[in-house]
């Protein structure tokens, strides 16, 4: 919930401030019950935007010991962002479809 609010706040800021490049946001697409990448590397404090391009619901969560989180249900056609503010490796999965896996490496 927190990250959702933050994401929309960032978007608003972006519109108001025009070209000010807020820290980069990596976009990951959920399509055909898969993430479009298996692994990504980002910097501490950056966020990842998960776009559900499927016609079914997905979930984003991690049970990694260095930071558990669960972004709840992401409905078709919506997106959810998550700021990674701790360094480390996060195994991110969909709780509905456990074959959907992506590793987020935060440097």
């Amino acid at each position, binding site marked *: 919930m927190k990250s959702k609010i933050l994401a929309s706040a960032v978007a608003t800021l972006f519109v108001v401030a025009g070209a000010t490049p807020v820290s980069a946001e990596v976009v990951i697409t959920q399509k055909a019950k898969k993430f479009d990448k298996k692994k990504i590397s980002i910097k501490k404090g950056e966020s990842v935007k998960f776009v559900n391009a499927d016609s079914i619901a997905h979930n984003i969560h991690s049970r990694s010991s260095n930071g558990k989180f669960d972004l709840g249900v992401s409905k078709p056609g919506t997106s959810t962002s998550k700021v990674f503010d701790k360094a480390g490796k996060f195994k991110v999965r969909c*709780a509905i479809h456990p074959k959907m896996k992506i590793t987020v490496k935060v440097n």
Partner: protein
Amino acid sequence: MGTHKKFSKLAVSMVVAISGFATVASTVATSAEKKSRADWKKEYVRPSEIPFPKENPYTAAKADLGRTLFFDPRLSGANYISCGTCHNPSFAWGDGLAKGIGHAMTKLGRRTPTILNLAFGEDLMWDGRFETLEQQALGPMSAPVEMNQNMKAIVAELQQIPEYRTLFNISFPGKGITVDNIAKAIATFERTVVSGVAPFDRWVAGDEHAVSESAKRGFDLFNNKANCVACHSGWNFTDSSFHDIGMPDKDIGRGKVVPGVVVMQHAFKVPTLRNAVERAPYMHDGSLKNLYSVVEHYDNGFVTRPSKSEEIFALKLNAAEKTDLVEFMKTLSSKDAPMALPRLPAYDQTVAGSLNVSPAAGPSTGSTAMRTPKGACNSFLMHYIPCSK
């Protein structure tokens, strides 16, 4: 040896299929477009080989040891329940009961799932609480209501059996009998348990006479109007996902494991449909007695609640369509040859002494008393364990 033979045979029989498999996954999703029957068939081609994890690679010796352990009742606290007691190969690796029965006739909460084709799956158990087969193998073994084995005692117990010492040393040189290695051997064996070639596979491979016209219509319904393919996809007829399919019971299933996700309340793992005919009764609670009832459930028998999967909706099938779907599912049965049971290693005959069986060691919860739930006295069990009235 039998296991290894089965494995290599399987690999050969599945070679035909390999090229199709990689393309399958990338072309799923677009079920909205009308796809031809021939194109759908391409999505169900059998894989060419069984995947084994890097952390626990396949060896014939390990799979064979795993098979011996799987059928050895000495892996349970009271030495009368093996993994194979509930996962009975003659019942397509299930028990034919609505709900499993564990230690001292304890009635379990859910139906015993088959172990068929688990090498191709993901998180295990109806609620997905174990990530690997290795972790899973130890779960029921140590659960007081299932096999009730004290995991500290099991290593010592197997150490008393000379042949097990030898077999573990062959499979795990320099490490021998450990709890981890028991799990690795059983998991390796389980990964070799793969359903064989069924009439459906022969049809997919090009034999038009392998299945009936009714079954072919059922296949079309499966992929289109009945929307079964939304979850029962691919050659193993499951995408290993979890859904609330609206069974009207109180069990929240995966909701306990993933409490923060609404649609995981009352959600259970999508099981394979391979050899389903032999695996009645159905669903996580074993409440449906045959496949026709299963079709009826999806047609209009589900309850609606916030967690219900969006992929479940009233299908409005007519009687002929329901029959076609059942006829189709019947073509997924491979009628595999019976499996030979292993000869179990004998106790040491070279030293005198009494057998230290683990009823004395007690349940893994720390209690030393052998507990029998009230009302669990049963003439069959009384031969084995004391009965508390």
